[in-house]
């Protein structure tokens, strides 16, 4: 009953497309049907959210285990290793510039106690907003790594390279 109703009102009136690989089940309802498409989208979103949830929980567990192991290792050695990079650069703030996607990127690197303390981006006129937004978090990565030699953000390679070379440029003035 339902099927015939769908058939008379739905896509059965339409001449069948011999190349349409998606047709053929449930009495002519196929991938062109709007309801089926909405259900697909819903299913995909639910699956991705569930995936994210699972991975987050797993990552958190792994991190807790890692921290515990680190703590034990530290307690065992009981000697805090001094940072070997300390004193690599002279204190002060330095400007640097690098070639990004569509023009120069200018940064200001603050060095205190011989370590990279802060990176500010002064200008990025030639960059596309989205791409630059992706690459921007590299400044934090660089501060954490205390080196401009970090992995580029995938998909935003040129903006990443621009930021990295700008920081390198600034650091070259600091040593």
């Amino acid at each position, binding site marked *: 009953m339902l099927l015939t109703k769908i058939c008379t*009102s*739905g*896509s059965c*009136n*339409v001449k069948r*497309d011999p*190349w349409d*690989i998606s047709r053929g089940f449930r009495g002519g309802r196929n*991938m*062109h*049907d*709007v*309801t089926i*498409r*909405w259900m*697909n*989208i819903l299913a995909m979103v639910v699956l*991705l959210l569930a*995936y*994210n949830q699972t*991975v*987050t929980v797993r*990552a958190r567990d792994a991190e807790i285990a890692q921290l515990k192991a680190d703590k034990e290792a530290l307690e065992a050695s009981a000697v805090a290793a001094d940072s070997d990079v300390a004193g690599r650069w002279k204190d002060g703030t330095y400007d640097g510039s690098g070639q990004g*996607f*569509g*023009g120069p990127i200018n940064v200001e690197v603050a060095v205190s106690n011989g370590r990279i303390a802060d990176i500010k981006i002064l200008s990025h006129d*030639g960059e*596309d*907003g*989205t*791409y630059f*937004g*992706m690459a921007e978090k590299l400044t934090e990565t660089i501060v954490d790594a205390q080196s401009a030699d970090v992995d580029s953000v*995938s*998909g*935003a390679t*040129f903006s990443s390279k621009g930021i990295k070379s700008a920081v390198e440029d600034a650091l070259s003035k600091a040593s």
Partner: protein
Amino acid sequence: MSGKKKVTEEMKSITVDGEMTGAAVPPLSRKKTRKKMTRKQKIFYQKLLRAGVQVFFFVMFPSVFNAAFSGVKEIFTRLGAGQVIEFSAFVKVLIAVCIFTMIFGRFFCGYACAFGAFGDALHGIYVGICRKRKKKPRGLNPKTARILTYGKYILLAGIVLMCFTGTYERAQGTSPWDVFSRVRVFNFGLAEYASGIVILICLMIYMFFEERFFCRFICPMGAVFALLPVLPWFHLHRDRPNCAKGCRACTNTCPADVELPSYGESRVCGECIQCGKCVGVCPRQHIKTGTTKIRGNEPWYVLLRAASLAAIFIWLGV
């Protein structure tokens, strides 16, 4: 940019004026002028409006199509690596464009995609040359075109699979989009892009001769959009039972050879890029959106959609 906006505004006022003069003349003669003169004019102004919107988006938001597809690639790369999918800038743009497409159809493709606008400009040159030489522009046979349509799904599946298995890095330099966006900012450091340049030039030749060649047959982002549902209220429909017998004006003028659904059909035409050409060309004015109150090519409706899309992009900081 402000110049383009002004042009768009001007066009709007012209169209409104045209309507008003049409309403001022007595009803009998009005019918005649509408059928003979005003429809051609209307089609012309629609073209102008669309070109204006396309130029506006090309200047203001030229990298959205690439960013949105980077979102797709990022999702599958992270899925393959077992990492959490973050709401990064790329993923946000992807979600925004997809939601907009699910509401209004592929308006983004028809009006806001920089690569689509580039292709339209190329094809426009071809049509202009044909008109000058008084020859009819030749298009692909619809049957061949329908088979080629599956090319984009195959490409999408290939790219997604490469991202998932982590081998996409090896294909770096083959993307014609990367070459296009680098040339757009006059950055000619294209040493590692030899294959991308060759592909882009081939595509440009095809895009020159066939309207929306890339969008219909190759664009992997278009494949994603073509699989999305569209709210039936804003999907174009035609009143097929009341059409003139054998009339195929809408399908013939359509850049994607779409056979629009009749009212009551729940079919989604994923290939429709909302260009609105069919609405203007229909001799009986039978094509309307699902609400039947909007015809789909009114200047206010086009500008409303363009403005809301632009607002979303500005909000996202594209």
